[in-house]
């Protein structure tokens, strides 16, 4: 069964994609005044498009990590997990501040990064690797050591 855990990763990827397509744009619209987009449909479309690219990156990294852990690495590869985490972080933060990434400059761009961070880094990467891990990498994700070796014993 553990070899089929990658299916969980794909499901989490699909969920994060749905969230990025519907929930986060809706939240942005609700907070349009605070963010400063004033209901711009173009801005929201760009927000969703960049977010979905981030989701793709997270899903891709999760699957690469899974395949490497399951079929290549026989020891825990802690460094690789952190490198991948860093990539998802960059994918969450950089677009919001990249000149020209959005059609309209807004006042509170950090909120955009926060949404990308929660959706792509926390749910899409961390949560996915935490629960849907290759056996050799069980204790590698942040917090897994304490969770799997103490809470279940």
């Amino acid at each position: 069964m553990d070899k089929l855990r990658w299916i969980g990763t794909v499901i989490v990827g699909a969920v994060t994609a749905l969230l990025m397509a519907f929930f986060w744009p809706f939240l942005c619209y609700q907070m349009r005044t605070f963010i400063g987009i004033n209901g711009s449909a173009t801005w929201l479309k760009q927000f969703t498009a960049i977010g979905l690219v981030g989701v793709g990156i997270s899903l891709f990294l999760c699957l690469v990590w899974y395949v490497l852990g399951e079929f290549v690495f026989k020891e825990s590869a802690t460094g690789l997990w952190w490198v991948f985490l860093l990539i998802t972080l960059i994918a969450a933060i950089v677009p919001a501040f990249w000149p020209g990434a959005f059609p309209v400059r807004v006042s509170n761009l950090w909120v955009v990064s926060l949404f990308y961070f929660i959706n792509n880094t926390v749910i899409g990467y961390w949560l996915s690797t935490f629960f849907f891990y290759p056996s050799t990498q069980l204790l590698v994700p942040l917090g897994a050591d304490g969770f799997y070796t103490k809470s279940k014993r």
Partner: protein
Amino acid sequence: MSNYVIGIGGTGAKCVEAFVHMVAAGLVNPSDRAKDISVLLIDPDVANGSLERARSTLQKYREVRTVPSVGRIAFLRDGLEPVDRQKSQWAWSPFADEANPSFQRRFTYAGMGVLEAGLLDVLYTDAEKKASLRKGFLGRPSIGAAVMAEILDLDDPDLEEPWKGLSNRLKNDKDPKVFIVGSIFGGTGASGMPTVARLLADFMSTSEIRIGCALVLPYFSFPAPDAQQAQQVQARAEEFLLRSQAALSYYQSKLSEDRDIYDAVYLLGTDDLPQVENNSLGSKEQRNPPHYLELYAATAALHFFEQQLNDPVRTHIIRSPGVCLNWSQLPGGKVTEYSLANLARFSYAYLGYFYKELLNPAELQRKKAPWFGLFFKKERLSEIEVSLKKVRDYCELFLVWLKDTQSFSGNCQVDLFRTDTYRVEADSEGNKRVSILKDEYIRLYAVESSQSRLVPNTFLDIKVALDRLTPEQSVGASDVGCFIHALYKLCSPKKEL
């Protein structure tokens, strides 16, 4: 129903050593698992190297079983206990209280009639009467039989341990089975086996007890004694065959006269008599290497314990397989093969990888090794270390025994394991230590081709398989015990086992 194993003399002790390893591999029939197996070693030479080795193996076996949760699976599932449970001693010597025993001191002329004294002079030479028996019965069954019969009387209320405990236990047991093993070409075994069997049969009615015995015929020799040794009363290799012939004649007559003593007799022999390195006749130096014939003797014991109460009396003849011994020639078929292979693969993996890794738990934690995180949390490090060392000690003894068994085989090539995959070296204290060649795990035992893809074949394969266990599978009373349990299962040469 309880089972008893009595090993008499150096060969008896070595056969018991082989038996311990067979029991460790889980080869005891499940129906015989009701109680522990009681073990008694009999040897007048308490410092005998072979006796010491068997005693040490029994003790290590017992110590590993003190680790909680060990014994839940095939590995060390069956308890082995000394007959003398009060003092917890495995061995008994008829001269335990005598500093320098001799036949003359035991049988004095005082109190003897003229006829008895004359008979004594006819049967025993002066040299035999005066010779020190500190190193055993000097290859003279006539001396041993007289001494044993004089000391042992199971009906005696003042009987010493372990005989007192043994007689009480036998009386209280329902259908006890006693297996006696020893050589018939030396002094102690040849004299002790018929004497002990007769005493037990006299003590119990034949319907209450089943007695089996394995008579080991000559299977090794030693160099001729030098000029100084030749003057002494001692066992001589050139007399082995003659003595065996005489002993066999005795047993043949006894079996035809009163077969009721023995319920099964196993005769073990080989044409090939490899020479041991020295001709030490006792004490620590008499530490002859294990031989595959002792493995057969151990399977004979297991076979005897499987016999039902109403099974007819049988004599089994086990003969050397010739130029090559492989798995198909060992009794017990695939069960024996898989069980011993499982124990060997486990011992190899444990010593070659896991024990070394576990010696450095901080590094394992740093590396976030899943198997370590899953199994080792509850106990303090020092407690874990003690348990791990107990398992290491037994595994080392087993692998040393395995290598010796395969190498001391004369002209017969023993083709069971590839024991050139590890080295045995003595440490500074003289203890034999196993040095594993890391990448050789797969060569140790030839896994069947249909299984080679299903079972782990390298240390890392096993490690990954351990990593795959879920946290729930690692829960148990003891961290080390659970780990051993899981590792042993993964080292099986067959997936369904």
